[in-house]
């Protein structure tokens, strides 16, 4: 019986083909991960929205402004334990804006509150913007802001 090998693939060929296939599949995997992160960010916004509503119900006032990535001290009791505003790929920013002149057609002073998702990752920012509906938010660059209330 002859021991000569006929046909088949060399190890180098198999490794190269598997590597190329993996590289082709990688963008889809990365995109799925980014969209999952965006969904997680949206979930975080809902958690903050609920906590803020609970705080307002008790105090008839909104929590004060806090720096990006920092949980407002007033919300600590209403948020889940260990809840963080700094998630690595994105940061939450509690916004409390005073509008002394109100809106153009109604100059009554207002307070706007909202949550901003800030990320340096353009893809993640776009994925967040793609997830949200057409009201109650605006998106600039990689940042999306969700208005919670405007008194």
């Amino acid at each position: 019986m002859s021991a000569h090998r006929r046909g088949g693939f060399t190890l180098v060929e198999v490794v190269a083909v598997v590597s190329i296939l993996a590289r082709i599949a990688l963008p889809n995997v990365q995109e799925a991960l980014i969209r999952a992160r965006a969904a997680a960010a949206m979930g975080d916004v809902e958690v903050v929205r609920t906590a803020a509503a609970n705080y307002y119900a008790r105090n008839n006032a909104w929590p004060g402004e806090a720096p990006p990535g920092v949980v407002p001290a007033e919300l600590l009791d209403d948020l889940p334990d260990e809840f963080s505003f700094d998630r690595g790929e994105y940061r939450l920013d509690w916004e409390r804006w005073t509008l002394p002149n109100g809106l153009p057609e109604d100059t009554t002073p207002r307070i706007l509150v909202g949550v901003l998702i800030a990320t340096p990752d353009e893809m993640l920012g776009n994925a967040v913007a793609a997830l949200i509906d057409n009201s109650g938010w605006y998106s600039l660059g990689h940042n999306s802001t969700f208005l919670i209330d405007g008194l």
Partner: protein
Amino acid sequence: MTESEPKPLDRKSLSDDKEGTRVIDEVLRDQARREVLRDIAYRRPSASLRTRVVAGVLGLVALVTWTLPVPGLRPDIPFPLPPADEEAALRIAAYIQAQQVEAFRLSSGRLPDQLRETGEPMPGISYQKLDARTYSLNGTTERTTIRWISSDSSAALLGKNGAQRLRGMIP
């Protein structure tokens, strides 16, 4: 029995030196033939030129796809908003920023020298103090740019689209 196999030992001729030498030669030649055959049977097949070229090309393609930014091999999530919505968002951000400047002016009696004095600046909005009572705000995104001077009306800053959106955003 084949020709290549050694002839059987002829005991009668063992005493003959020539016959002895012939037998030894025959055995040695047979041994050499067997070694050659064994070498051929177990020799590792050498890769043909075609196999080497295919492996080389595949390896090169794999290397390129992993090391160079090949179009189509990056995740692609485009910005989903049309330009009109992006401009409306920019105007809303500038409007809120202008109100923060106004709130600062009311509380401190002067315009801020830098936007950071009013709190965390809105993304994409820059501020320039023109004189003691006037300032300008510039909003920039990749596709849109706006500029507003505080002597203009705030309604002009928001624009129709921005005002409509802001009204819709406030619960």
